[in-house]
């Protein structure tokens, strides 16, 4: 069956959200939405499953915490015990308060950096990658909804898109 790719452009995130809602009611399948900034609630409307990045962040944080604890134990207790501030106890647990800031910082450091890297890999982003968005304007002030439609649906769809506030609707052969 012959089908077309439809690009609908919007100028406002609230209008976009209402349009996506209207499309969902009519059971049109939305391929992708390109926005200049993250739009609150869009993921829920499109039925995209909740991100699992938070679970990664928690695990990375635990890795950071263990790395810091192991590192401080090796440096300050095992390899080269030092008397700092008159506290030569040479025991990890008794020196724990002074290691807490380092453990906290490395927890945050690992969670943040590894989470960003995971996000890049998950979104297939790397240096010199060519942009995937179909129109440059989606990086500026336009919101673009991309749909697939069979030839007999196209007329209904375009009129629905215009009614929902689209400023421009383009058709392309799939």
């Amino acid at each position, binding site marked *: 069956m012959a089908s077309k790719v439809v690009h609908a452009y919007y100028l406002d995130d609230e209008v976009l959200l209402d349009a996506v809602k209207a499309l969902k009611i009519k059971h049109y399948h939305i391929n992708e939405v390109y926005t200049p900034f993250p739009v*609150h609630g869009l993921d829920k409307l499109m039925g995209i499953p909740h991100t699992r990045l938070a679970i990664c962040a*928690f695990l990375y944080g635990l890795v950071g915490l263990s790395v810091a604890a192991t590192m401080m134990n090796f440096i300050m207790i095992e390899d080269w015990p030092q008397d700092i501030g*008159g*506290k030569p106890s040479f025991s990890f647990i008794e020196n724990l*308060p*002074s290691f*807490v*800031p380092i453990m906290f910082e490395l927890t945050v450091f690992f969670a943040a950096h590894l989470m960003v890297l995971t996000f890049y890999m998950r979104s297939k982003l790397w240096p010199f990658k060519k942009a995937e968005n179909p129109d440059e304007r989606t990086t500026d002030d336009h919101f673009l909804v991309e749909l697939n439609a069979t030839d007999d649906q196209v007329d209904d769809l375009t009129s629905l898109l215009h009614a929902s506030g689209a400023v421009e609707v383009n058709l392309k052969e799939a």
Partner: protein
Amino acid sequence: MYTLTKNLKFIPILLLILGIVGIAIGFSSAPHTIEEVKELLHDSHGDGHGNSHHEVAVKDSHSGSHHEVSSSHDSHDSDAHYEHILHQLHNKPWASLYVAALFFFIISLGVLAFYAIQFVSYAGWSPLLFRVMEAITAYLLPGGIIVFLILVASVLHWNHLFVWMDPELLDVTSDKYDALIAGKSGWLNGSFFLVRAAIYLFFWNLYRKYAVKFSKNQDAEPTGNVWYKKSFKYSAAFLVFFIYSESMMSWDWIMSVDPHWFSTLFGWYVFASMFVSGITVIALVTILLKSQGYLPAVNNSHIHDLAKFMFGISVFWTYLWFSQFLLIWYSNIPEEVTYFITRINDYKLPFFGMIVLNFLFPVLLLINSDYKRLNWLVVMAGFIILFGHYVDVFNMIMPATVGASWSFGVSEIGALLFFLGLFMFVVFRALTKTELEPTGNPLLEESKHFHY
């Protein structure tokens, strides 16, 4: 309009009666003479606890006042020791009363600050919860009066919660003369102390009175948002006054029980404690009302936001607690570090248990974003946080007032039940006075549509 259920009418009164009985037992069972103390201690000498208790108390009496150490007569020394314990046990019912009174008072004060912040920041998510916050701050007046009366009782020497109130410490000719406390007497003296307390309480209650009045007026005549704008101005002024007066309040009412010791971030530390307890109570009351079928427009996004605050401020509290601890532990200056040494020696369980309750549990229970929307989990975390911050106030007051003679017994539980009963009595009765939705608030519509 909210109507009280049978249980909510009955439970607070039951708690009040149980509390009064507990407090009365606590006061009447406190020993009056050294002989009674000796009897008490010898009775409990059989078990291990009695023994350790006794030894710790001896250590404490020596480090507490140096002149006792110099008098080396055995009989004299032990009599002084028993007298010391007598003072501690005499203080105990007062201290437990003060801890519970302070704990519930700062909850309503924390909620008042949170309420003012909502106005100043034009928060759109929270107006649906304003009537809950207003009801919780209704406890500010009765709670404040009770705390004030306890402070008056201290100034009148009915109790010895505040060591610095002893006039002999300021007398150069007395052998109890304390140069450090005498040096602070310009700030720490009975009359100025009470005048300051009256000023804080007067202005906090004044703001509370006007904020609630404006909120009602705004419902009656919403056009032009005249009352809403007034609320904004009063809230901004209140917050400026609050951040100074709250800090001074925590020096006066809490930090000064250890008059030699001071911490520059103590005001913030107490603020974090009252803020997180207050927000937790807002969440608990909201969930209770919802379970009774009120507040239909409150959805799980509102609960999620409250739970985020509970999580975030718990971490903030830990940050301040640790900042205070780390610097004092590291520098190890004797007059500073005794504060933590008494707590670690004599209060090991409440001191370390508090960190588990106030940091570890909230972090692990509330870190997951989905868990913050489960009412039963927020309630569970809420009870842990509230108990943890009661223990926090306990750790602030008890070591300086009853030392090693502390316990969690009839007088502590009685005081806790009494103030819980009073708090519930006042708060739920205040809820029945107005509509539960502030219909005139210009941001109410946004709050109803709040989804995250």
